[in-house]
């Protein structure tokens, strides 16, 4: 039974939760959004900078459990350079992974994000893993395509 919980808390997840990457305010972000999970109090603010249709840079700040912190940290690494459509496709695959619906063959390669596969055995923790992804969507939705300067005003 012990193995179960270690499947959730993979070394990479523990590492990213202890030393999150890109954990800061992003100067000159085009948009930001705040995600909140009222059940456990997890909070994350995600900042994105776009170049045309591509995510040029992202960062996050927040206060949350190991799963939500590691998820935010890994998201900022994985999404750099991706287009909106690629980000959306990754989210779908990631969502399938953590809810245990299995990665679809047609979906994009999840790479490092596969480390979250163990979450599917812990249904109450799915929201922790997906919080930052929903926040990303909210942030991207705030930026019109193509991005205009006015949208920077949404950053807060």
């Amino acid at each position, binding site marked *: *039974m*012990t193995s*179960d*919980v*270690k499947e*959730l*808390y993979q070394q990479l997840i*523990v590492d990213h*939760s*202890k030393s999150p990457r890109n954990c800061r305010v992003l100067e000159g972000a085009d948009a930001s959004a705040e995600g909140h999970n009222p*059940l*456990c*109090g*997890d*909070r994350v603010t995600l900042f994105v900078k776009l170049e045309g249709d591509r995510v040029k840079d992202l960062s996050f700040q927040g*206060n*949350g*459990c*190991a*799963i939500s*912190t590691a998820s935010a940290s890994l998201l900022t690494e994985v999404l750099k350079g991706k287009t909106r459509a690629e980000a959306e496709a990754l989210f779908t695959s990631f969502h399938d992974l953590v809810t245990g619906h299995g990665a679809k063959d047609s979906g994009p390669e999840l790479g490092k994000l596969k480390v979250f596969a163990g979450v599917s055995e*812990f249904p*109450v*923790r799915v929201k*922790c893993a997906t919080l930052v992804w929903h926040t990303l969507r909210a942030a991207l939705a705030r930026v019109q395509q193509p991005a205009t300067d006015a949208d920077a005003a949404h950053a807060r």
Partner: protein
Amino acid sequence: MTAATATLAERIRRDFPALDQTVHGRPLVYLDNAATAQKPRAVLDAITGYYAGDCANIHRGIHTLSERATEAYEGARGKAQRFLKAPEAREIIFVRGTTEGINLVAHSFVRPRLKPGDEILITAMEHHSNIVPWQIIAGETGASLRVAPIDDHGELILDRFERMIGPRTKFVSVTQVSNALGTVNPVADMVAMAHARGVPVLVDGAQAAPHRKVDVQALGCDFYAFSGHKVYGPTGVGVLYGKAGLLDAMPPYQGGGDMIRSVTFEKTEFNGLPYKFEAGTPDIAGVIGLGAALDYVGKIGLDNIAAHEGELLRYATDEVLKVPGVRIIGTAPKKEGVLSFVVDGVHPHDVGTILDREGIAVRAGHHCAQPVMARFGIPATARASFAAYNTFEEVDALVRGIRKVKEILG
């Protein structure tokens, strides 16, 4: 850890069917009693007994089943009266729980008396259910909510509380025991302070009633509310005690059947106490189940429960503090039933998940007391809370679980 108290827990554990199970392959260690307690078979039997044998509506049939149901329902009122040492049975109103009891008082007693500038006084350790109803009626009337502060141990600063009772204070509502910190408030003294200035008081007994003898006359409070499900009774039922003189003068909270004497389309004459406040068909099975729970608690004896839980809490406090990096939130000299803690560098949510895989049920979160969390500058805590059936071995399992948390995430 005396043999006598150990046998109390061991003996009564058999009365609770839900305790006898494994979770993730481990024996269940149920330490989430402040959220809700497990139910003894006597309670389950009383509920089934009503549905299987006496199922009828109350106060309205002349047939035998209705008579039996009414007798059982009103019998439970008598049990609740004795449990709280209330002077009269009609001072016992059956409600859905503490939350509904507080809302009833807020709307029927306090709201009609509020004018702009008036104040309602609570403490910084209240559960959301003893904050939000007051905010709602304050917002509607232009009154304001004042909050008496607590210190770094989670103890109420009593002289600050006393000084905050002023000419504009129209009502005081305070918890007897904090669900997030375990702090026991000196409610008898607090009631006396409020009464000295002519201010009525409600005591939230949700976390006190399961752990100690309550005597509303000794406390002197005007209202007292508790939830059945935390006293080993069913969910969906609770008790509001109010002084008869106050209840009599209050308008009803809800309108419907059973709470009226006569109705025409022009005019309704309300029923007397307690029926004026029990509109509609109540949770009859729940009330009967609660009666059985109060009998059960009476049989074990609240003094025995208090002694056992006190030893458990002391033992758990000592043992948990032996784990490096564990901090207890809520270190008031007088505590009951609750051990809230944080593990350095580990979010309580992760503590909860890892403990759950060890079969240990604790609550991780803000415990519906976000202002308490804010006061201590933390988003959440993990909380172990004790009941009469918990054993010292379960505390040992908790401590092993916390060590495991540190091993995985420390």
